[in-house]
């Protein structure tokens, strides 16, 4: 009796939370969770949502110049999917107690990040191929793993999103394959895109495990299910052969195939570049944010009108 009265509620709640994690059960919005867990998941989901939305910019840069009716339809549908992922992730993140407006505010104040990969420019049509094939390809490896993340709404969002991602990667690979079968100019364009996007795609998985201080806690909470290096290796092993099939060269002179482990080992990643882009000094950081803020501001009158209209409707009823 004494015991029950003196034990703080959070102690039993914490035990309950940990038991759920232990049994691989999902944590749901109504469940008690440690504040640090809530913050970590919220941050990750918000950044994931922002990444989907900012990612619309480099691809949107080619939507008006896509070279066939078919290419136009595919690219538009793909970008639309990404926007849909953004919407879906924003509402899933809202279950943790922050609304979309505030998340966008944090993005604009540069207190919330998005994937650094979108701070590279989409210079030629081949970049649209490289983005779909490599960037979505890397995202898939990460998102498949996150289907088993411990926060229920996030895990379910990933299941839904992963269904669309394989189409994204295929359309990108198809663009590359078509160009590699094309004129010498097209082949050069494809290889150039490969050279520029290969290393940034590998950086998408984040620093090496040894230099990734938050990984351990995230793994304990089962937010993260596999380490950065492990996910990166999966991506490398499945992608390199795809490159060879269509005649692309991997821009890595140290690349080796290990017969024993049946996997590739790569040369050193340029982490200075990675951190420089993360800290805001990539080629498009400024452009992406300026664009997002500009059109958010230009749409303000529409959102205000919508709110005013809704208020009038309520008053009338």
């Amino acid at each position: 009796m004494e015991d029950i009265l003196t034990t703080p509620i959070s102690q039993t709640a914490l035990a309950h939370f940990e038991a759920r994690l232990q049994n691989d059960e999902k944590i749901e919005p109504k469940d008690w969770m440690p504040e640090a867990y809530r913050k970590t998941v919220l941050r990750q989901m918000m950044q994931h949502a922002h990444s989907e939305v900012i990612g619309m910019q480099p691809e949107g840069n080619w939507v008006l110049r896509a070279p066939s009716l078919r290419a136009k339809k595919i690219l538009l549908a793909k970008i639309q999917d990404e926007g849909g992922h953004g919407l879906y992730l924003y509402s899933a993140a809202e279950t943790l107690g922050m609304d979309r407006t505030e998340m966008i505010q944090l993005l604009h104040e540069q207190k919330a990040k998005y994937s650094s990969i979108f701070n590279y420019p989409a210079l030629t049509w081949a970049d649209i191929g490289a983005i779909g094939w490599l960037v979505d390809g890397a995202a898939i490896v990460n998102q498949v793993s996150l289907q088993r993340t411990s926060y229920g709404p996030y895990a379910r969002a990933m299941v839904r999103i992963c269904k669309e991602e394989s189409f994204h990667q295929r359309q990108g690979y198809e663009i590359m394959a078509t160009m590699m079968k094309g004129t010498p100019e097209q082949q050069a364009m494809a290889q150039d895109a490969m050279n520029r996007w290969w290393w940034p795609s590998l950086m998408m998985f984040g620093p090496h495990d040894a230099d990734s201080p938050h990984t351990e806690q995230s793994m304990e909470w089962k937010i993260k299910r596999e380490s950065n290096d492990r996910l990166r290796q999966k991506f490398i092993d499945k992608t390199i052969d795809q490159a060879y099939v269509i005649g692309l060269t991997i821009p890595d002179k140290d690349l080796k195939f290990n017969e024993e482990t049946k996997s590739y080992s790569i040369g050193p990643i340029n982490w200075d570049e990675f951190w420089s882009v993360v800290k805001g000094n990539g080629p498009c950081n400024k452009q992406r944010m300026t664009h997002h803020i500009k059109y958010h501001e230009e749409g303000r009158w529409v959102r205000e009108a919508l709110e005013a209209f809704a208020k009038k409707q309520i008053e009338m009823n």
Partner: protein
Amino acid sequence: MTTDQARYQYLLRFADTSLVMAQRLAEWCSRGPILEEDLALTNISLDYFGQAEAFYNTAIPFGGKQETADDLAFRRSEREYFNFLIAEADNGDYARTMMKIYLLSVYLEKIYTALSTSSQPELNMLGVKSLKEIMYHKRHSSAWLFRLAHGTAESASRVQQALQDVWSYTDDLFSTDVCDELLSGELNYEITAMKHVWLAEVEEFMKQCGFVLPQTTYQIQGGIKQMHTEALGHVLCEMQYLQRAYPNAKW
């Protein structure tokens, strides 16, 4: 001009209108006032691309030339396009884009409804196929215009301005040429009567929004005579860039 040639050219009128409209709406990608609308506008753009393709592919056999939908879209110049001028008019702000979509979709709804009763099987099929999407575009744009008209003072005045500006492109929708004459037996509509129906519906809707129709008599016309505004050249220039720069390449 033979009947088949008339069908070819008549269908290009709608194919080109759909294509240019699609291209314009795709400009909103990553620029919408809210994410939901970004997606809705790309969705409408996608519908129009699909319709353009369907109209091109239906037109091609009537033209009797060796060509593809992509040839028609990417290898013709500004004096070879048949689209209505409203399609190439710049997007402007969100109110103006919604006004363009609304005024055009009321018109296309009437045309496609008539075509869907045509005795000519291809026209009939295109009418039936396109109608559902066009009706959705009309619902979407009218719902937005209504909300904006009854939103804030700013949004109401932007819609009013949009109506004023886009109005000058509407007579163009009712211009006709020799194709209409040659196909009169299978089009199942008469353009003057259709204009009355269109006008009555638009007037009634604008009344609900709190606006009267513009008094302006200033109208620009010429789309189906291949006389365009300066805007079209820029739209095509951007759209056709890769096909023109690498004429031997396949994408």
